[in-house]
């Protein structure tokens, strides 16, 4: 008797922390067995040493497994119209073989998630994001000739980031010399985009899960001469903060996960106002976003901070004049490349909007079982905190 696929899938419970298609390679490289759970997958915090892994991103080439990213395939004659209504950016302006960063909102303009939209053809797209949205995507498709398929488990993904990443790809036989930032191409059945989450030169590669290990091995062999190193999320997180990127449910709460009504955010409240294309006649949340702008009823603002000293201010309270609570630091690190104490913070307007001076953060540094309390001056600075010319140079440099 053959089991139905549904019966056969019962066995998932035997492995509650799913292993990604690259897991065997990561496990072999892991010296510290420092795993965490990313969307139900076993993922490394670090493989050996987070600090050295960070320097691989900034100095050589870092290989990071992004398979747990949630992926949806969206296709059909109405796919462009559908996505244009769903997301805040103008999808008509997204060319074939291009990628753009975007966000999508509920009808109240509250951000459901941010992510990247890949356009493979006139009618064919992939949406990559952090949270799961299948019911939302399907319900938004009423009246559109479009198919939506969740393909997270089927597609394996790798981010190859760092100044030698182009050299690694070239050595591996992938000709991506002409690939500009946000271009995407398929070579030898490998989908390669010049995208990433580090603010550095870098690429993301996607293959069907069965072809994952050959891809890893191909990159690894080619990368040996170029300092390739597998990294965990600890290193990536440092790089993404330097690049000023936000993470859903870390720097803001997504509308479908927030339990408290006041935690949801409009794009303008999390620094995504630049994505919103108000020229588009209609998209989810448009009326609410425009009304909030018109009525000046935006409540929050996301800012980059540079904080004096060198103690990271993660989750510190931000004060105005040292006494009025103005917001919270959602992410903060000492930036090794900028040599600055940087942070992303969510402030309650008018702080960060009309009142931009005289901001302070209260840092509690736990040192040998004692909190060293510090009030440190913070200055609003533009993001990204770190801007690297090599990120966008085309053709890219080899080192």
């Amino acid at each position, binding site marked *: 008797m053959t089991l139905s696929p549904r019966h056969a899938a019962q066995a998932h419970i035997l492995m*509650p922390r799913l292993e990604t298609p690259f897991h065997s390679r990561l496990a072999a490289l892991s010296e510290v067995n420092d795993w965490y759970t990313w969307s139900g997958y076993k993922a490394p915090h670090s493989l050996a040493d987070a600090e050295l892994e960070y320097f691989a991103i900034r100095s050589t080439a870092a290989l990071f497994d992004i398979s747990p990213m949630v992926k949806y395939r969206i296709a059909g004659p109405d796919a462009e119209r559908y996505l244009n209504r769903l997301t805040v950016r103008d999808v008509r302006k997204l060319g074939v073989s291009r990628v753009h960063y975007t966000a999508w909102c509920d009808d109240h303009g509250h951000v459901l998630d941010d992510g990247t939209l890949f356009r493979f053809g006139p009618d064919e797209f992939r949406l990559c994001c952090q949270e*799961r949205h*299948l*019911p939302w995507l399907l319900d938004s498709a009423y009246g559109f000739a479009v198919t939506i398929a969740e393909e997270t488990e089927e597609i394996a993904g790798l981010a190859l980031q760092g100044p030698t990443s182009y050299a690694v790809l070239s050595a591996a036989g992938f000709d991506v010399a002409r690939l500009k930032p946000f271009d995407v191409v398929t070579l030898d059945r490998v989908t390669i985009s010049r995208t990433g989450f580090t603010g550095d030169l870098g690429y993301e590669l996607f293959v069907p899960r069965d072809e994952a290990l050959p891809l890893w091995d191909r990159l690894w062999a080619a990368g040996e001469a170029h300092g390739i190193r597998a990294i965990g999320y600890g290193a990536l997180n440092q790089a993404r903060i330097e690049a000023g990127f936000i993470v859903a449910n870390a720097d803001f709460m997504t509308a479908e996960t927030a339990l408290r009504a006041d935690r949801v955010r409009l794009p303008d409240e999390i620094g995504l106002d630049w994505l919103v294309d108000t020229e588009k006649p209609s998209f989810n949340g448009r009326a609410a976003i425009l009304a909030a702008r018109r009525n000046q009823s935006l409540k929050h603002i996301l800012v980059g901070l540079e904080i004096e000293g060198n103690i990271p201010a993660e989750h510190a309270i931000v004060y105005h004049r040292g006494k009025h609570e103005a917001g919270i630091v959602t992410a903060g690190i000492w930036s090794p490349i900028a040599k600055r104490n940087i942070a992303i913070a969510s402030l309650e307007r008018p702080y960060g909007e009309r009142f931009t001076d005289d901001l302070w953060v209260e840092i509690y540094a736990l040192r040998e079982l004692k909190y060293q309390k510090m009030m440190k001056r913070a200055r609003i600075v533009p993001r990204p905190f770190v801007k690297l010319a090599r990120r966008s140079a085309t053709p890219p440099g080899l080192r």
Partner: protein
Amino acid sequence: MQKFDCLIVGGGHNGLVTACYLQRAGLNVAVLEKNGWVGGAATSRELTPGFLYSNCSYVCSLFRPEIMRDLELPRHGLQVIAYEGGAVFTRDGDYLASYRDHDSHRREFARYSKRDAEAYNRYARDVTRQCRFIQPLLMRTAPDPLGFRPRDISELLYLARKFGEFGPQEMAQTLRFWTMSISDFLDEYFETDVIKAYLALSGIIGTALGPMSPGTAYVLLHHYMGEVDGSVGAWGYARGGMGAVTQALARSFESVGGVIRTDAEVEKILSRGGRTTGVVLAGGEEIKARLVVSNADVKRTFLKLVEEKDLPGKFVHRVKHFKMRGSSGKVNIALDSLPEFPALPKDSNCMRGDMHFTDSVERMERAYDDWKAGRWSADPFLDMMIPTTIDPTMTSPGKHFMSCFVQYCPPKVEGRDWTDADRDAFAETVISQIADYSPGFRDRIVHMEVRTPREIEREVGITEGNIFQGELTFDQLLFNRPVPGYAQYRSPIAGLYMCGSSTHPGGGVMGAPGRNAAMEILRDLKRPTEAMSKAHDVV
């Protein structure tokens, strides 16, 4: 003879909670219980040698942690242990499991529908938001909109303010939640029948309504309001069976000087000139007291124990029309070994949680159709649990106690009283359903207790054996529970109070009615209430 300030009619968990708080506040309190043991519907009884039976209520989640702490129940032996898992068996030999781990839960749903798997987050969020709204109301006396006392007005304002914290979306959602059928509600989130059937169960348990009856969505909410140590919505077992809850309460009560009299059935609550004067026990003994608190349900209290002529006609009328219909039964089974369910993987966590066999909402509704016709369901739905899979104290190693909650089961069979033959036939529908999924099940049975509404009413005293002392539909909640104008634990007779699940916030082994009643009594006596913890913050 010892004199008492206050008599509690019935030693159920709420009666004991009230008794504990009042005794601690300095009153002399006696609990009068008709059975030879206390506990009401939260008992652990050794019905056959070597097996403790949670023979009424069988799981614990709603019991308020504030009460456990105030009354030092852990010190008196109460432990609530969380369990994990659960499953619905499907007719095609598969099952739908419930796992505590978020991602495993999603993957399990995804076996049936990827959409439903991802919809669960949205569903859980909406339910949690509503629970966060209701939870703080549990430990507050419902305001009386007809009363113009400052406290009623401020409580009404509190309600309005809480509601006002919701956006328009949540407000709409709240009204829908409180009025919709659980079936319609789940249809908005899910497409898979077995998933809906699994979740719908909480919407109809203990309620003489079907999953398609309006109002059942709230019943589901009521079951999600509980927690095990801050894990909201989680359910657990009381170690030693549900009697551990009431045993701990009894010990707490006696440790501060309270008196429990068992085999002391109250036959009448006495009153003179609109004021209570005490009670008369079966056998004629009269006990005087200025305060009497009834843990019995509102119908039993005011239609049997109090002279109807001593009550306003309108009040009696409302009590008569309070809905508390018998709808469920219980089959409790001692097993000489752990049953096997071949559909489940070996050592599955599901065995430690709630197991069901009803894999569609339609089947549930058909089961309800039988009830409407005055019959027990030919194809009932069971909420089946084997607490001994994680509680080693209820029987010896290798042996098991199984609790089967069964719905639907009418208060009368086609209009006539239950007979023993009816009861046995009812049990057979249950056993045969289990045996269909568990080969050899019958051979493992050592002893069995079957309880229809007749047995539950006879032993526990709840009218029609309704487990909530009155259905939990919106028309019978808050200031309408049990009777408008009498929702603050007081009655038309001065000195006579109610503390059972017929009062706000309703049934389940929650203790909140008992605690809130004690609060009102102490207020009337102008005694301090600081020793009673405020409801934990919902942050």
